[in-house]
């Protein structure tokens, strides 16, 4: 009687990969992130009656995960050094040798962002949520999310020292847009 529709557990499973990615961006540690995802699924299952059918299951799970992390984070805040770059170490596989350094730089910079900026940026820029959905997940106004995303981008650019690219002028910008940002030309 307490076993819900199997499509519910399927929907939950479908959300697991992105929940993990979000959790890792919050925790900076794969093992803790997986524990967080597990706790999220348990909480969600125990509170399925509060899920409104027809609404976004993924957003609901993200909300639970974020709240769990927040309450846990407050407890352990004193013991864990925040933003020490450990996020960079959590992902072993590198896309390409050539861009390896660049990505490590990026991940280190991402880990240094303030908590609310990082989660806003990840939700909107990677998880594919709208500003409205991200605001719902974070429990704040849409304008706040927009502001955090903007500040996150600005701060990342500063940390990665790539604002100096401005000096190259519009030609280079145009080329980047046309090539999609990552073309290799010989």
């Amino acid at each position, binding site marked *: 009687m307490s076993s819900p529709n199997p499509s519910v557990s399927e929907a939950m499973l479908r959300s697991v990969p992105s929940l993990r990615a979000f959790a890792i961006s919050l925790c900076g540690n794969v093992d803790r992130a997986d524990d967080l995802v597990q706790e999220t699924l*348990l909480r969600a299952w*125990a509170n399925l009656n509060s899920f409104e059918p027809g609404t976004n299951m993924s957003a609901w799970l993200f909300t639970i995960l974020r709240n769990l992390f927040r309450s846990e984070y407050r407890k352990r805040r004193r013991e864990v050094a925040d933003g020490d770059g450990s996020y960079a170490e959590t992902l072993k596989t590198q*896309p390409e040798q050539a861009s390896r350094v660049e990505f490590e730089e*990026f991940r280190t910079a991402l880990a240094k962002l303030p908590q609310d900026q990082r989660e806003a940026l990840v939700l909107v820029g*990677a998880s594919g949520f709208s500003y409205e959905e991200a605001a719902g997940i974070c429990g704040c106004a849409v304008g*706040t999310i927009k502001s955090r995303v903007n500040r996150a981008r600005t701060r990342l650019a500063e940390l990665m020292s790539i*604002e100096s690219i401005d000096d190259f002028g519009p030609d280079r910008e145009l080329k980047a847009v046309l090539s999609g940002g990552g073309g290799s030309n010989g």
Partner: protein
Amino acid sequence: MNDHNKPTGPKGPMAGAMQGATPHKRKSSLNRETQIKIGSQLQITYNEVVNQGVPDRFVQLLHRLETESIEDVAGAHSGEFAGAKESPDDKGS
């Protein structure tokens, strides 16, 4: 005439958003290439995890949730974040 006491002030829900205007002398908006670069690196980093798929432990967890009671499953799996289990650890500071 009670409609003069509007609660909107500097503490309204949008107050946080208003602080977005940076007092820095830097350019307030990033150029297009920088935005593309940050966006693509963010997505690649994120998708590396997404592409790992669903680890087996979660398949098993949901299978157990479907077949057993939540209490049994939650009791067996109490990770670091488990809030159900009470463990008074405060032995004073």
